[in-house]
Structures are given as C-alpha cells and as structure tokens.
C-alpha cells in the first residue's frame, strides 16, 4: 500500500507537467491548426536556461526563472516570425513538418551551447521530504501542483474574461470572421506561440529538479504532452489537464506494478488506442455544426 501512495503521487506530479506541456500544444493548435512539435524544446529550454542562470551565473531563484521564461518566450516569437509566418497560406501539414525541423534545430543549438551533459537543477525549497499520510513527498512536488493549478486558473481567466483571450478563441473558431471584426489574426497567432512557449518553459523549469535536464529532454516530454492533449481532446482546457493526470497515473502505476521499463511504452500505447478508437479524445466533443 505504501508503494501505491508513492506511485500515485509521482504519477500525479508527472501528469501535471504533461498537462502543462499539453496546454501549449492545445493553445497553438486552436489558434492555427498546427501541431507544434517544437513544444518539447521550449520545455527543454526552460530547464536549461534556468540551470544556466541559477547554477552557472549564480543568480537567485526567482530572477532566474523569470529570465528563463522570458527568453524562451522570445525564442517562441522568433520561431513564429521566421518559420511560420512567412508561409502564411501553407497547409497545416507543411507547417507541422516545419515545427519538427525547428525542434531539431533548437535541440542542436542547445547541444552546442550547453553540451551533452545531464544536469540537476537544485530543488526550489530544499530536498527534505515531507511525510503526508504515510507517503513521502518532495517539496518540489508541491511546487509542481501549485504552479499547475495557478497556470490553469489564470489561463481560464485569460481566455474567458479578457477581450484578448476572447479574441484568440474567436480566431481559433473562425479566423476569417475574426478578421472581419477587426482582429489582427497574425498578432493572435504570435500570441499563441508566445503563451505556449512561456507555459512550456515554465513546465520545464519546475520539473527539472526532479528529473534532471539535458539538451534532449524535450523529445520525450514533448511527446508525453502530446499524448496528454490527444487523450484530453485538443480543444478543451480541462480535458487536457485530465488527460495529463491520467497519463501520469497510468505511467506510474504501470512502471510500479509491471516494470519500470514499460513506462514510456504505456504512454504511446495509450496514444495509439486513443487515436484508433476515440480520435476526438476522451473529453473532447465531436464538432456538431448547426447550419
């Protein structure tokens, strides 16, 4: 039973990270129809930049985090300007392939800058475990839960109660109609890239103390986030959270009770099953149009 607690806990905290990464996928997909396979690289950038500022430059924690997120966001904007915007009328599939290219490029650049070593980011509030109901919990887990909840709530607030957030949703639903009410669709696309880069890098920063970070963590984390958002059904915000948590839990339970070697396999088996049997996601609604 003790183990079960532990599995659940680590499953939930990994799941929260997957959900955050998945959020980034959903935001860009909803605004542009693109699946941004460079999403994982923003996660990596978050971790590596935080490491760079915190450990190599010796900055305090909060400025390091803020700087890392800012830089990752700028990279996201540059990525959109250089790789996505010039092909404004291209089909999504071409743009998706471009995002794969961009992810390889960013990963390569990170390798040249920071090398191939794996590093650990120091935990935000020490490494002394807390004991709750018989399970040990690292303070970093609490950080992860808190940040995830914060991000979910603030994005709900943003998308439902600010005019810019509503404009982004309008763009996602019908870009042409959005332009007809005076919304600059290109700005909305850029905004979606910057928001998902920011959320992705934040996810990378808060997970780095638990899982270590290196130039190539983006591939796996990105794919897990992709699984989360597919389970949740691309469009729904809460669905992605549920998808991430479910994925994290199943992974942790599978790794604990079957074999740790199957951890990643479980995620991809779930992904394939969802794509085969319920491509709109467990929590997504089928589009029903009334004409």
């Amino acid at each position, binding site marked *: 039973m003790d183990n079960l607690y532990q599995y659940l806990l680590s499953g939930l905290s990994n799941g929260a990270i997957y959900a955050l990464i998945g959020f980034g996928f959903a935001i860009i997909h909803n605004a542009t129809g693109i699946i941004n396979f460079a999403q994982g690289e923003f996660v990596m950038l978050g971790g590596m930049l935080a490491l760079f500022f915190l450990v190599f430059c010796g900055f305090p924690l909060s400025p390091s985090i803020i700087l890392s997120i800012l830089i990752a966001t700028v990279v996201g904007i540059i990525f959109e300007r250089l790789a996505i915007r010039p092909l404004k009328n291209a089909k999504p599939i071409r743009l998706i392939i471009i995002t794969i290219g961009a992810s390889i490029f960013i990963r390569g650049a990170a390798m040249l800058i920071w090398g191939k070593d794996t590093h650990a980011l120091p935990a935000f509030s020490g490494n002394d475990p807390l004991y709750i109901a018989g399970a040990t919990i690292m303070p970093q887990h609490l950080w992860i839960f808190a940040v995830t909840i914060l991000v979910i709530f603030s994005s709900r607030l943003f998308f439902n109660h600010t005019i810019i957030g509503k404009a982004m949703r309008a763009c996602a639903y019908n870009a042409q109609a959005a332009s007809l009410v*005076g919304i600059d669709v290109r700005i909305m696309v850029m905004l979606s890239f910057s928001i998902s880069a920011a959320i992705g890098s934040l996810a990378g920063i808060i997970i780095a103390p638990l899982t270590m970070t290196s130039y190539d963590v983006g591939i796996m984390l990105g794919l897990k986030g992709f699984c989360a958002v597919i389970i949740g059904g691309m469009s729904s915000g809460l669905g992605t959270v549920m998808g991430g948590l479910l994925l994290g839990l199943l992974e942790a339970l599978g790794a604990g009770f079957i074999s740790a070697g199957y951890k990643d396999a479980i995620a991809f088996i779930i992904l394939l099953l969802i794509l085969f049997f319920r491509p709109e996601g467990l929590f997504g609604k089928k589009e029903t149009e009334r004409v």
Partner: protein
Amino acid sequence: MLKIKNVNTYYGQVHALKNVSLHMNAGEIVTLIGANGAGKTTLLNSLSGIVPPRGGEILFQDVPITNLAPHKIVKMGISQVPEGRQIFKPLSVEDNLELGAYLYHRAKAEKERTKKTADMIYELFPILKERRKQLAGTLSGGELQMLSIGRALMARPHLLLLDEPSMGLAPIVAQEIFQVIENLSRESETTILLVEQNARAALKMAHRGYVLETGRLILEGMAADLLENKEVQRAYLGKDKKEIWER
C-alpha cells in the same frame, strides 16, 4: 463615399471579378443582385480585404484601401455581415457583441460609446438581450443573423456590407430582418451594400442596384427602374416572361 474602379479579383486561376466598377453615395442602400457564383460574395470579400483584388482600385472616403488587411479595413469604417453569419458559436452572445467592438478595446475613452451601441443593439433586437449570457451556438437561424448584424454594428461602421442576410430564414423572419435594415439606413444614416438572393425584396428597399453576371456588372440603375426592367424581371424576379423567340 465608396468608389470601385476596374477591380479584377481571382481565386487562383479563376477570374472571379472582371473589371468591376461601382460607386456608392453616403446614406444610400445599394443592392447587388445576381445568380449563384456571379461574384457577389467575392466583391464583398474584395472590399473587406479577405480576397484582395489583383488589379484596380478601391477608394473609401477618397482613401485607397485596395490592399489593406481586413482588420485595417474594419478600422476605416467598413464592416461586413458575412454570408452564413459566421458567429463565434463557442462564445456567449454578449462576448460576440463585445468582439464586434474589438477595434476600440484599447481606447478607454470609447468605453461609454461602446456600451451605448450595445444598448442600441439590444433595443433593436430584444431577443439578444434576453439571451445575452447564452452560448451563441444555441441560437436559432434568425437570432444568429440578428447577432451577426449586431456584431458588425458594434464597430459603428460608416459602410455596412450585408451578404445574403435572409438566407435560410423563414419568410416572416426575413421580413423582420429587412425591416431592421431599412430602419438602420433611415435612422442612423448608415450606408448599406446589400447582396441578396431575394432580388425583389432587395430592390424594393434599395435606392439603386447593380446586376452582376459571371463576374461582370451588366446593368445598373435606380432600384425602381430595375424592378421594371424586363431582363431583370425574367432572370431574377421569376416573372414568367417568354424568351423573344418564343413569342
């Protein structure tokens, strides 16, 4: 107010508008009639910047707007009520109207006027006020059309482009919409370019009309004259006129 000179618009290789020239005076209702595929929607979309013309010039209040992006054209004072309403269905009625005034969102000074415009629209369409918290996707066809018109009016346009406002509506609802359009033109002096399948209703309401056929303007004139025109009656008003050789 609006001058369109020799506009040519293409969809890929398809030459959709051929040397179209048209003008509108302030306060007028001008209607554009023509069969399906004649290029009516294309003309509106060229005006709105969605399908920019490849040749020719569009002047609005003597300013060229030919190659402006759609959101800039809205800022100039031209709003379109697009074909098929194109309402943001996952958002509430209220949010749809709020987005209609998106171009004013940075100007604090406009807040009061935007609120007044919204009140005016709720007065125009009381049903929208009743449903303002509802998701727009739950509205009926007529209500969606009202919302689409309301959303366009939120930008306080000088020129309103209406694309098939009666499409898919019950005759009595269509009548109601036409009445609103007529009142709008009379009371707020909005200039209106109306594209309509129901040519008779459109010509009755309009001051002038143009007839578009396969991308070319073939006729123009006072609406009353067009209603009497034999060719228009035969082709667009469904009057049973025999072809010349059948007489």
